[in-house]
């Protein structure tokens, strides 16, 4: 893996970990990142990675962090199963609306709000040519999603 790609994944990982696993010590985060990256590299070589590299790495890391925290009271807020069952009405509505949003918008919003990615990273991820473009697209995507939610609320 070249250095630029390595650093890009590392930056994404730390953006996400800082946001969702802020209580974990730095050296543990580093170990988990290297484990997740090693698993990604191995399975990528075998052609078994079916999602974006960042999605794969973060999913492995998520499981690793869960294993580390197992038995402790402070679980990650976004435990998939629990989250799905416990979403309040408004959040469930947003979740349904999100499925109607185009992939480009989802990618921008996910990078920004889930991975805590920098504007430069989002530019790379989405192929946008400037920060201004990313900013504008992000705003447009939020408005699109909000409009879908409002329509759904009206229909309900």
């Amino acid at each position, binding site marked *: 893996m070249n250095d630029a790609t390595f650093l890009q994944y590392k930056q994404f990982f730390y953006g996400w970990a800082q946001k969702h696993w802020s209580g974990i010590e730095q050296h543990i985060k580093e170990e988990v990142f290297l*484990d997740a990256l090693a698993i990604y590299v191995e399975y990528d070589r075998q052609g078994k990675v079916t999602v974006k590299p960042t999605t794969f790495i973060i999913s492995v890391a998520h499981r690793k962090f869960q294993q580390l925290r197992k038995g402790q009271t402070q679980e990650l807020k976004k435990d998939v199963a629990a989250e799905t069952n416990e979403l309040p009405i408004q*959040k469930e509505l947003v979740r349904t609306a999100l499925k109607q949003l185009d992939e480009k918008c989802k990618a921008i919003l996910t990078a920004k709000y889930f991975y805590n990615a920098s504007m430069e990273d989002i530019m790379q991820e989405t192929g946008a040519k400037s920060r201004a*473009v990313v900013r504008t*697209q992000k705003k447009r995507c939020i408005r699109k999603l909000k409009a879908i939610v409002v329509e759904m609320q009206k229909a309900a």
Partner: protein
Amino acid sequence: MEERNDYLDKVERIFDGELDKSHLRDDALKEDAAFFEGMIEALGVEELERGEQALEDIDIDRIDPDIRAQLAAQNKKLSTAKVRKLTPIRRILAIAASVLVLIVSGLLLWNKQTNSPAALAEDYYLDADLPGTMSGGAVMEENFQAGLVDFAVKEDFETAKIAFQQIGDDSPRYTEAQYFLGHIAFQNEDFVAAENAYTNALAAENLPGYIDRNRVAWNLMLAQLANGKDIEEALKNFLPTATPFDEMARALLEELQ
């Protein structure tokens, strides 16, 4: 709907970290805050579900020791890499780039009336192109060189402005000086001066290689927008151009309409 968008903008800025989260207690923002929280959680759930499916046949406890060691070495190398000392020219350009990013970020953080022409103009504004080298080849005129150093390195825009203003229209550096005067005026929110300077820069038949004519035209159009002029026709001229101008033109048109 306009009022709701204002709230949505404010909430977006809170979630972007530009505004303090205490604002979320404001009743008027609560609905949008719930929407944002829902959006962020839903994005996370969807992304992790996608990842969960991809990990179905994968054993995350079995790690190839060779790959792991290789990555650890790479990580160590990158973490301890010495910062390469930049040459003076590169350092000046690096500082200039950082300064410009800071200036533009600062401009965006100023709290403007949402969707006002000035706010939109600043949202879509593009940083200044800078020459790839500041020496070698032809000797630059003293004022131009001094102005460029004041503008890009010292961040002393007032002094840079005076230096650039002394470059008359008979100088071969006139167009470049006007281009930088446009940027300085825009950053000072003197949009009338920015419009004049960019118009002068754009009037040149040939621009130096490092200045993109589209960028000058784009920023001129934004200055006109901030001055309350109708720019829709000018915007449409950018639609057939290459990215990022076509994308930005489409987005700005949508916002204006």
